[in-house]
């Protein structure tokens, strides 16, 4: 096993890996940008090395600086987390050249399934069902028109190098195709420095379900079942669960999708942890979408229902160990739900809300798992994505898990910036969510039904104002007589002049 591992990431996932390293007796090296000098990752790691200024391009995307940090500290391996360089085959190869183990699949496997079009070709060849469309980027408007007509509207334009909904556009009719293609390509160029876009059939009212696979470097691979990821906003997942509610009724679907995922991964010569994403339509037809060649954000829900430690296995596999689990060893027990707590403002169309966190109170007690990287006094940087924490719960059933999550949210307080905690409580209380029968348009539909946020009642507003007045009076005690007002003004004046 490695003696020292560098974690080439930030935020909660850096902490997740540092925690696993500590539990395994492996020294940890954090890397940080100037915006993260005071982060919990830097403070909890055994060592820390500066990469550069806040922007990712000058820090967490600097392969050279990361490899220098590994050399400086003598780290034998690099865990890339998710995002940043985690799915970058050039980085994986550079690690190999530098004699540092990249904790993930081989550079060749990343290349084989790293782009969506390549992955579709692999899946098709391996016999896994894929969404109708083409496997190549479109290179002209004429070709785009031809392909779209062939597979039939509505179609989806997607960035070849994409993720997180960037460079993605739904097109319902030919008239909109040209503008959408231009928008998608320019967004793809901005986001990934790769303007290539491809077209696929839009599956209507699908669930988004993904399968976790885990394989060693000696040819043995299993799947760990599914995660239900249909609850998305702007193509970003916000609530995930495992199992998927659909599997309660149709348990054979897990096996079928698991087999399909393993076909794709095996065809790509994949090892370590990876995820195959699928769309599942109302008739439970499933279509392979793409493969994420790294640890997923939402891996905790799989860990909670399988009681396996995915990061521990990533490390063991990368160090050459054999995966000692067989497919039949894997059992799914109870129910897990995860909420992604973002710095965003539900009352302002979920706009990002970076800034200083004044105070934090975290939920705890039975069945709670919190993967967070924030603390009171922290300034949430505006340079990175707005994920503050992942709040996950486990309980014996879906209903109990939902109630446990609501309990946890009722304890959770983050002040100074806005978060989507209230939004989660509204969704978890929603009867349609609770039926378990929903698809990827659930959140837009929910907003249409129930609004983006709930206006406070008059009683609540009266109470809040009364407290604010009490608070002001406490901060600046009012003494009797007219002098009070002018003293107030004087002190205000002094404050302004300061």
């Amino acid at each position, binding site marked *: 096993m490695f003696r020292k591992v560098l974690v080439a990431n930030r935020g909660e996932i850096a902490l997740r890996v540092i925690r696993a390293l500590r539990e395994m007796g492996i020294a940890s090296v954090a890397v940080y940008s100037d915006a993260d000098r005071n982060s919990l990752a830097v403070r909890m790691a055994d060592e820390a090395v500066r990469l550069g200024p806040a922007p990712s391009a000058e820090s967490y995307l600097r392969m050279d600086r990361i490899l220098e940090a590994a050399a400086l500290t003598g780290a034998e391996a690099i865990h890339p987390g998710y995002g940043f360089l985690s799915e970058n085959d050039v980085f994986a190869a550079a690690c190999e050249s530098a004699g540092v183990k990249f904790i993930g699949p081989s550079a060749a496997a990343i290349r084989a399934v790293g782009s969506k079009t390549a992955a579709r070709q692999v899946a098709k060849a391996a016999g896994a069902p894929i969404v109708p469309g083409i496997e190549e980027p479109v290179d002209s408007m004429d070709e785009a028109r031809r392909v779209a007509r062939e597979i039939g509207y509505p179609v989806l334009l997607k960035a070849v190098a994409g993720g997180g909904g960037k460079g993605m556009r739904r097109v319902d009719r030919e008239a909109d195709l040209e503008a959408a293609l231009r928008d998608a390509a320019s967004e793809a160029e901005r986001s990934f420095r790769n303007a290539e876009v491809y077209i696929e059939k839009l599956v209507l009212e699908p669930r988004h379900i993904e399968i976790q696979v885990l394989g060693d470097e000696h040819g043995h691979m299993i799947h760990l079942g599914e995660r239900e990821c249909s609850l998305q906003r*702007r193509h970003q997942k916000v609530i995930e669960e495992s199992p998927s509610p659909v599997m309660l009724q149709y348990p054979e679907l897990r096996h079928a999708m698991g087999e399909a995922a393993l076909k794709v991964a095996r065809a790509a010569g994949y090892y370590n942890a990876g995820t195959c994403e699928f769309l599942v339509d109302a008739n439970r037809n499933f279509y392979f979408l793409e493969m994420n060649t790294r640890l997923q954000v939402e891996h905790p829900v799989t860990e909670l229902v399988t009681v396996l430690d995915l990061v521990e296995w990533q490390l063991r596999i990368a160090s050459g160990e054999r995966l000692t689990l067989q497919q039949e060893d894997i059992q799914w027990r109870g129910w897990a739900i995860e909420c992604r707590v973002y*710095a965003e*403002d539900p*009352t*302002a*169309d979920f*706009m*990002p*809300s*970076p*800034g200083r966190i*004044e*105070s934090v109170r975290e939920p705890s007690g039975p069945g709670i798992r919190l993967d967070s990287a924030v603390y009171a006094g922290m300034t949430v940087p*505006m*340079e*990175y*994505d*707005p994920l503050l924490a992942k709040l996950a719960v486990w309980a014996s059933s879906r209903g109990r898990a939902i109630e446990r999550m609501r309990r946890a*949210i*009722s304890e*959770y*307080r983050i*002040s*100074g910036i*806005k978060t989507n*905690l*209230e939004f989660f*409580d509204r969704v978890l209380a929603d009867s349609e969510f609770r039926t378990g029968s929903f698809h990827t348009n659930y959140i837009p539909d929910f907003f249409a039904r129930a609004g983006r946020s709930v206006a*406070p009642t008059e009683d*609540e*507003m*009266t*109470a*809040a*104002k*009364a*407290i*604010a*007045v*009490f*608070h*002001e*009076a*406490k*901060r*600046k005690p*009012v003494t009797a007589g007219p002098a009070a*007002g002018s003293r*107030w003004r004087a002190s*205000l004046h002094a*404050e*302004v002049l300061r």
Partner: protein
Amino acid sequence: MKGLPPNWQISEIEPGLYSILDGTRSLEARVSRNHKGYVVDLNGQILEFELEDPRELSSGSRHHGRQGRADIVAPMPGKVVRVLVSAGDAVEEGQGLVVVEAMKMQNEMKAPKDGKVTAVSAKEGASIAAGQVLVTLE
């Protein structure tokens, strides 16, 4: 304390954090301020408002009503990605004025009403603070 509901018993946990017993009912409230006014977290629900209290610290509202001038302010710190209008342009309610980026997300600031652009303070590529005026309409 004038204005406090009857039966309230308030205890301060730390500055700005209060436990309130309304009879036997337990409430918890955190009071803070942002550039728009007061923010009260009441049992996890966020309420935002301005106080008409004469002792309010705000140095003057930036909000001028629907009929008159309207300042479009940055709702969060970020960067101006694109400015979509120029001074003198006529705009319709809902029309995009400025695109601001923060935390890897782009957000379009829209006109709150029909009107005319009287000033554009936003500059493409510039960093901005929450509450900073980007565009003024009339």
